[in-house]
């Protein structure tokens, strides 16, 4: 048998699902364990997941990594039901095998030790934001997390992250935190210039609105994109994003981009 050289930087492997629990009506937390030692996986990187036994689902589905536990050899991701593929994935049971291609993409730029940062997450885009907050090594006083959703019910419970960051909420109907979009929230409107770095992950419209303001205020800002992709490792050239350097692959040149690179 031909063995894969251990020099490999990316892997395809079956994981075992150890937990799959609903976080709210449309988001699920799936945790899966590897049989082999995990490589370093950084906030902003993603995994490409095969969807088992799903009619007419041919390609994998990419998900941002939410948590990595190197002791238990587990990777967790937040799966939001968007279509048939993600729906099917949320039905997987503990004990089942799940094939992952990992780790993919580039991570967020880590903040400097003295930086004050604002992390903005919308929908399942909270996953890499929480991962970054936890891994940044910053003191809680330096980290603000602003989470946006339509209603209180659309938010997932992230209170356990209050030890890493100050949590702020925005809802369109005012049922949790301030009423309105994240870009209308007081920490974003009033305090933007006190941050050294802003990071965002969420719906395209949300990130574009954030980028516009951050650009005008000349604040460092990185966003994580999720263009449609087939491979996830830079060969299909389907997930391209127009940038100052031409069309770049979101899967390998991103998914994290500095807003100054983008043609937004």
């Amino acid at each position, binding site marked *: *048998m*031909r063995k*894969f*050289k251990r*020099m*490999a*930087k*990316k*892997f*395809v492997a079956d994981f075992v699902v150890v937990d799959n629990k609903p976080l709210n009506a449309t988001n699920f937390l799936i945790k899966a364990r590897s049989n082999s030692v995990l490589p370093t996986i950084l906030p902003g990187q993603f995994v490409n997941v*095969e969807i088992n036994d799903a009619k*007419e*689902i*041919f*390609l*994998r589905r990419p998900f941002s990594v939410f948590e990595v536990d190197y002791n238990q050899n587990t990777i967790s991701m937040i799966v939001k039901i968007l279509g048939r593929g993600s729906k099917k994935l949320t039905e997987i049971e503990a004990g089942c095998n799940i*094939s992952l*291609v990992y780790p993919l993409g580039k991570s967020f730029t880590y903040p400097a030790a003295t930086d004050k940062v604002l992390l903005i997450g919308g929908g399942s885009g909270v996953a890499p934001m929480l991962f970054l907050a936890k891994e940044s090594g910053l003191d809680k006083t330096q980290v603000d997390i602003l989470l946006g959703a339509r209603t209180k019910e659309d938010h997932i419970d992230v209170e356990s992250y209050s030890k890493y960051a100050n949590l702020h909420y925005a809802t369109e109907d005012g049922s949790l935190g301030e009423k309105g979009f994240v870009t209308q929230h007081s920490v974003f409107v009033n305090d933007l210039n006190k941050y050294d770095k802003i990071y965002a992950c969420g719906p395209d419209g949300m990130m574009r609105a954030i980028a516009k303001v951050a650009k005008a205020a000349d604040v460092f800002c990185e966003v994580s994109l999720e*263009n*449609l*992709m*087939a*491979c*996830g*490792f*830079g*060969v*299909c*050239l*389907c*997930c*391209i*994003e*127009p940038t100052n350097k*031409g*069309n770049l692959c979101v899967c*390998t040149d991103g998914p994290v981009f500095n807003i100054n690179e983008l043609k937004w």
Partner: protein
Amino acid sequence: MVDLKVKVHNLEFKNPITLASGTCGFAREMADFFDPAIVGGFFLKGSTLKNRDGNEYPRMAETPSGMLNAVGLQNKGIDYFIENIYPEIKDYDTQLIINVNGSTVEDYIALTEKVNELDKIRGIELNISCPNVKEGGMAFGVSCPGAEMVTREVRKVYDKTLIVKLSPNVTDISEIARAVEGQGADAVSLVNTFLGMAIDAETRKPKLSTITGGLSGPAIKPIALRMVWQVANAVKIPVVGMGGIMNAADAIEFMLAGASVVQIGTAVFKDPTLPVQIINELEDYMLRHKVQSVNDLIGELQI
């Protein structure tokens, strides 16, 4: 031990499992997953004389058992390849064949002359079948005079192995295969993607920016297999077969139909290590069927 070695013209492949152009980048992307020396070869990403940005996003749509793409030959041009990519990959211990594309015959000639200078690129795959570009590409590959003209002109300037990649979007693919054979092609490879289309019923819009695109994946396998069989029976030069291969059995079917070498394409998107698994499974098959040399499978369809 079984013998996996196979020749296409004077190109020797250590095994018949190669990766298809457009689905393996410039081979180095695959080296993140496995040692490139394991596979028979790489058909490198379609390259053009000058930089091409490719088509607008969105460029892909998932379809039943396959996908449509409309990448449009995005690449940085042959000079970029020669200066920045070739030095990195040239010492891979495997066959490297570059897929070349032009909008005009002059483009094909200029491009081929440059590639002819590269020692470790011992063959080209002349792409006259890309369905996603406005000029050139498939326009040459869907008529005998067009296919003949490009092949003839490139043959004049290229002295290494010339493989012509055929389009399935024709009435009779064996006619085109015979036409390029007549102009000095050393081998043919087939099939490129089938022209297809996807619409979002909710938005009433096409799913691809270009409206139509190329269909690949297991959805096309039976048609590709039939075409490989027809072409293998129509020409004397070797055939490189591809179209929806997902496992060793698929690869063997293409070889039985007449392919000397096969290319794994879209399946790599699902599992980039699949070519390695297919080589292992091919060996198992040969041991099980007491086939000593892989050459004993080529065209050995029992009718």
